[in-house]
């Protein structure tokens, strides 16, 4: 066989392979990036960071009018229960505001998002910068055919056929109750006594050390990230709602001074036109004192998250 023929066969096969992979990726449009995203239903299956980042380009601005930013604390706030607005829960496990800003910038740039709800917790402001190799502009290209995409597609297929449990809905909310992956690191909520014991250990350690938890230290970069999110929201005509999630009351009493200092620092970056909803104020004391409302020292139980979302809904309707 001539070298010319070798090259032709090689080039045609490569071209056919690329066309097949890119073509099927365009056709399946896993992240609603290529066709008309309006009315499409897209969920997270495996890679939360990649999926939520890519959803933020077209899926979110075309199908939602609000965005909930946060980390695992707000991940199980099922925003599909909100009646006053269609809010996409862009919370990411282990995220900080640098990563959430990447999503916010994409989603807000279309100018169709009316609400930006920021669930602010020390975990998100303790660090600044990228926490993984995901959520880069190259990920957009990866939606045209990559290992991650194929794994996501396989997970979708397994979930659709009941062979795998889907834990995210099309609003981006993640139901971690009973998820072995989540409970491996955060414990199970099935035994409230265990949660109480874990909380007590945390409180005892806090009293013994006499120092605030390291998470309370705020990264200057994180404040800039948050300031940037608020500025982008305002620039695109979106209202800003800052939410301070509820803290178990006994823990809160031990750390009251730390929390108040934290909020006063945060107040310096919150724009005057923004609204603050603090779930640690007296009207919410009863719920915060109930250990069954918590999954561990900081995450909320499913039933408390449902209650919280109903409060959020009432608030959004009023504003």
């Amino acid at each position, binding site marked *: *066989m*001539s*070298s*010319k*023929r*070798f*090259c032709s*066969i*090689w*080039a045609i*096969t*490569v071209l056919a*392979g*690329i066309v097949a*992979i890119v073509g099927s990726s365009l056709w399946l449009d896993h992240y609603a990036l290529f066709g008309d995203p309006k009315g499409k239903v897209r969920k997270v299956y*495996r*890679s939360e960071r990649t999926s939520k980042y890519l959803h933020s380009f077209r899926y979110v601005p075309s199908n939602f009018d609000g965005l909930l930013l946060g980390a695992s604390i707000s991940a199980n706030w099922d925003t599909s229960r909100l009646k006053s607005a269609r809010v996409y829960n862009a919370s990411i496990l282990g995220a900080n505001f640098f990563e959430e800003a990447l999503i916010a910038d994409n989603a807000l740039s279309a100018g169709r998002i009316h609400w930006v709800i920021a669930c602010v917790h020390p975990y998100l402001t303790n660090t600044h910068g990228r926490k993984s*190799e*995901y959520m*880069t502009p*190259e990920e957009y*290209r*990866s939606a*045209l*055919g*990559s*290992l*991650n995409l*194929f*794994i996501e597609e396989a*997970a979708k297929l397994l979930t659709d056929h009941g062979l795998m449990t889907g834990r995210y809905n099309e609003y981006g909310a993640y139901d971690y109750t009973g998820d072995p*992956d989540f409970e*491996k*690191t955060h414990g199970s909520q099935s035994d409230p006594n265990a949660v109480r014991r874990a909380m007590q250990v945390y409180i005892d350690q806090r009293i013994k050390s006499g120092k605030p938890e390291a998470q309370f230290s705020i990264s200057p970069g994180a404040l800039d990230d948050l300031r940037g999110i608020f500025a982008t929201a305002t620039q695109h005509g979106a209202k800003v709602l800052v939410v301070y999630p509820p803290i178990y009351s006994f823990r809160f009493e031990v750390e009251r001074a730390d929390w108040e200092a934290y909020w006063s620092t945060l107040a310096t970056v919150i724009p005057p036109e923004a609204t603050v909803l603090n779930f640690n104020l007296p009207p919410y004391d009863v719920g915060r004192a109930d250990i069954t409302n918590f999954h561990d020292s900081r995450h909320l139980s499913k039933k408390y998250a449902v209650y919280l979302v109903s409060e959020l809904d009432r608030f959004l309707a009023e504003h």
Partner: protein
Amino acid sequence: MLFTSFEYLFVFLPLLVCVFLALRRLGFDAASRYWLLLASLGFYASDGWLNLPYLVLSIVLNAWLGAKIVHCADPKMKRQFLSFGLVANIGLLIVIKYRVLLLGPFGFTSAGSVAVPSGISFFTLVQVMYLTDCYEGLAKPNTAINHALFVSFFPYVMMGPLVRTRDVQSLLAPQDARAAALDDIAPGIEQICVGLFKKTVFAQSFVFFVDTGWGQNRPLTFVEAWITTIAFAFELYFDFSGYSDMAVGAARLLGVKLPANFDSPYKCKSVIEFWRRWHITLSNFITTYMYTPLLRARKKPTFSWAMCATVFSMAVAGLWHGAQWTFLIFGILHGVALAINHLWRKTKRRIPSALGWTLTFAFVASSLVLFRAPDMGRALKMYNGLLGAGAVLGLDREAFLGGSVTLVRVVVALVGVVVCFFAPNSNTIAKSFESSGRRALIGAVLFVIALVFMNSLSAKEFIYREF
């Protein structure tokens, strides 16, 4: 620009080859070399324009020195030109690359503020070989343009293979119009496909385990330490040999046959054999330009003198990789291992092949801890794990086996291990090349799979880029 980037594979390389072939076909031989030089300098500058002055300075100086050495009639002067050239080249390398290591202990912390130009370790050695070959009458002096092309040729300027002028005659000597025919394109393409697959599929699959192991703050268990260490040995092999294959393949597209850099080193049953098959062009350089002159420094070299020369040469080879004590110790360790190996051979006793292989692989893999460790402290921690100083069993399954793509990585890594030990290596594949439809299809499939892996995350740097 990385060999594993889309812009290289789909824009730079095809454009370069097409224009080059067109110029050659039209009989513009000189123009085709100017084109290659321009593209090579552009390729080098794509890593940072500020690197270019170092390369240009090195080219101009050595082209001039090469001519002086060859045309000088006085042997004493000739030797002085060579000495000046060697001191200038090695001196520049030391000043730029090792200033922090040398001046750091004396408090000159600002010494590290100047960036190290890409590929300086490689092109400096190429220049040293050129000057020495000129001195010994093994090479004719290059014209300025030819020398610039010889040194900056894009397939090897960054990370080798280390070449001598005689290796790349087809690049430098005038060619007739038909010389660069399509015949070289097919094997070149195949070699690029193999190299790209090795780097993006195999090497990247081991990266996960390596990064996980080295990323742990706690002491690793014996099992975890060995998984991390062996994974790095395979990552380094697939990374660098994949790069070398791509370099050899790219040069072949232009009708230039570069020397091979690897020959299944992990199949070796002794350290002596290992160094004949690992980073071959560097081993050759060390043997020819360091070990042999050291040996000749004595009229009657003894065995112990030869072993001292071995340890010294290997220590320098280790240090060549970077300005860190870990590299120096890596070199000394291998030098001592080579000396022991030679001593063992003198006894004429034989050990079973399986034992020889196990000892060699375990030694090489564990010595590479020094290659990966950011400092001696971290290296010692890893050695604690390798020696079972802490827990022996136990594997953090969440860290090592968690994550959505891990299963794929595990399977691919295991396939990589099998390929490394049982499949024909790149040299065998290249030597047995035949232009057939089956091989074109296999090459294309490897290329497409590699593209999918390449597109999965941002392209990773080659490990040797740091050296």
